[in-house]
């Protein structure tokens, strides 16, 4: 599928695991029937031949810019690439190793792990279908296009006992920093009420860079592109090259601008450090001009408040006046009375985050599992929602509904074009 440009970020690497035996891999859910599949000898190569039972079959769906890098994030499993899939390959797909339709890839019983690097409007549907097919998933960021998609991915991860890891790893580095560990313990203790913290993230959200074209005239669909499959669950629109190949980010139909593109990177450490992996802000307010119905445009800042008082601000620095309502304010154990500090220090450290490979091996959730990734993605979606409706919204983090604004809520769970559904 069309490409995603490379995104540099420190600490992107999944570390330290060895190849995982396929026979254990298949018996993944708590002592289930142990499988033994024959992977054709020819796909394994000659020198360094790995027995079939030790081989992890891999597939890459979406082979554009970030595709190879996303597949490489699974390298500690040493997966054998059995299938590659991209909707731009109508002229070359052989349905044996190269495909245009991800459904044919997921039907393959020799594929164990799937890397997804399509544009984001496909992430949830492919991830869910892959887990329904018994595969583990490493999915490029952003996880989803709207909030209900993330909830559905998390439900599928739980229902099928599969491993999901989002393709950003900032939380792994944060979790090794002792001061961040203490902050997380402090926040998770629930003793800091109200929380005075104000985290302001300024710049780096590529707002101008990922703005779409508002006057784009339809153009002929390239013969090698399956446009219907590219559009997938989103509303059918006439083809224009700006809608594919990285610039798709500038359209609500496929992503959500620079905020969606960069937000999961920027906010993945935040949700871990501040212990917000299982909740969401309750009040969201944006400073932005009225949004366009198709194109992601400019915005100034968004303020997101959690129920405990913690405030997160995204200040684009690319439109209007910068955010001045509050000053940045960290949280510290010194904010607590003396006796409460001891309570926090006595709390056990959080479990080390598991890499994708380690999660696959142990069948325990990955560090960037679906629930955590969803909660980070919710920050971008809620911010974009406030930008799109142009008014303050209130959100229920448990039911995941917008409160008191039924029109705004309609963007939380968006209808999909047939035959696609969550």
């Amino acid at each position: 599928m069309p490409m995603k440009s490379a995104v540099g970020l420190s600490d992107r690497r999944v570390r330290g695991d060895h190849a995982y035996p396929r026979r254990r891999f298949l018996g993944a859910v708590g002592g289930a029937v142990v499988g033994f599949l024959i992977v054709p000898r020819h796909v394994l190569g000659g020198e360094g031949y790995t027995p079939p039972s030790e081989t992890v079959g891999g597939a890459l769906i979406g082979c554009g810019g970030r595709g190879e890098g996303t597949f490489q994030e699974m390298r500690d499993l040493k997966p054998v690439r059995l299938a590659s899939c991209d909707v731009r390959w109508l002229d070359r797909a052989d349905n044996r190793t190269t495909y245009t339709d991800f459904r044919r890839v997921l039907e393959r019983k020799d594929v164990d792990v799937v890397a997804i690097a399509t544009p984001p409007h496909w992430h949830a549907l492919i991830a869910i279908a892959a887990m329904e097919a018994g595969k583990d998933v490493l999915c490029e960021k952003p996880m989803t296009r709207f909030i209900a998609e993330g909830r559905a991915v998390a439900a599928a991860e739980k229902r099928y006992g599969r491993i999901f890891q989002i393709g950003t790893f900032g939380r792994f580095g944060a979790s090794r920093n002792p001061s961040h560990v203490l902050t997380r313990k402090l926040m998770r203790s629930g003793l800091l009420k109200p929380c005075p913290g104000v985290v302001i993230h300024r710049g780096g959200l590529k707002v101008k860079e990922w703005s779409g074209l508002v006057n784009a005239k339809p153009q002929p669909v390239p013969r090698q592109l399956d446009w219907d499959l590219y559009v997938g669950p989103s509303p059918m629109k006439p083809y224009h090259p700006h809608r594919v190949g990285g610039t798709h980010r500038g359209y609500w139909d496929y992503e959500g601008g620079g905020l969606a593109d960069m937000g999961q990177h920027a906010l993945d450490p935040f949700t871990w450090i501040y212990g917000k992996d299982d909740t969401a802000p309750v009040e969201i307010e944006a400073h932005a001009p009225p949004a366009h119905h198709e194109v992601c445009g400019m915005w100034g800042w968004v303020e997101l408040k959690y129920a405990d008082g913690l405030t997160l601000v995204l200040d684009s620095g690319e439109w209007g006046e910068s955010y001045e309502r509050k000053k940045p304010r960290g949280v510290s154990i010194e904010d607590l009375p003396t006796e409460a500090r001891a309570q926090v220090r006595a709390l056990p450290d959080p479990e080390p985050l598991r890499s994708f490979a380690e999660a696959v091996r142990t069948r325990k959730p990955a560090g960037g599992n679906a629930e955590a990734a969803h909660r980070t993605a919710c920050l971008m979606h809620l911010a974009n929602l406030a930008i799109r409706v142009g008014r303050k919204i209130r959100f229920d983090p448990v039911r995941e509904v917008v409160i008191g604004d039924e029109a705004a809520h309609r963007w939380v769970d968006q209808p999909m074009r047939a035959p696609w559904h969550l």
Partner: protein
Amino acid sequence: MATSSPDLVALIQQLPDADTPGQASKFTGPAPADAERLCRALLEGGAESVRGLIRSLREPGHPEFRDFRAEYLLHCAVLQVGQPGRQAQRALLAETLVAEAANAGLSKPVRRLLLRELHMVGDERVVPALGALLADEDLCQDAASTLVAIRTGAAEELTAALGRARGKCRLVLIESLGAVPSTESAGALSGALGDGDPDIRMAAAWALARLGDASAAEPMLRVAGGASGYERIKVTQACLLLAEHSVAAGRKPVAARIYQHLHDTRTDATEGYVRELAAQALATLK
């Protein structure tokens, strides 16, 4: 575009332009206060003013298309009236939008745009008019999506249209009934499980699962068991969803039957994960 009202032309021209040729797009709207003023002026003109704006719309591929600003002004108005507490203006805009969406004198792309705008501000008052568009091959998807967004009264329109729907629209309606389940649709959905089109079968299974229709359990298990590839994956998923809904509705025997069947039949190692989760679910039912 050719507007019939000088006021509308003046309003549109106050909006900033974008997409300078040769430069990357940097779309930005007007300051919020300016947008509020322009929308207020539009809405104060009543239905006639909104209708005039709509009839000036041209899709980008149309020879008379000038730029995006007319449809953007319409969208700004939709955003404004979508705010809580602006019910009268919302009703005026929604009723005008749906009337024009039914206007055969407008192009299909423009009518589809209007349906998508209704997605945000439509309510039960526009539901019957949307139902009348469900047989139109070019409009049924957007009309159905808007009905799903509105929810109230949507299932009745979708169910009523399903009996006479063909081709693409039939699939759209079945998918949509999965999103807004209705017991009235159970019979038609059950019939669709035997359709020759796998997309129809998969959509029907999902819709029946969402509906929690206990009588669908056996036919769904049969369809799943007889299917292969992607269809087997998706209909099996629908069976699991039906089991979960059955538990939630207090119909544990239905859920137990589904889980037991999946446990007993998913014996191939590659479906061991289904067998295992069925076993786990059965254990929780005891």
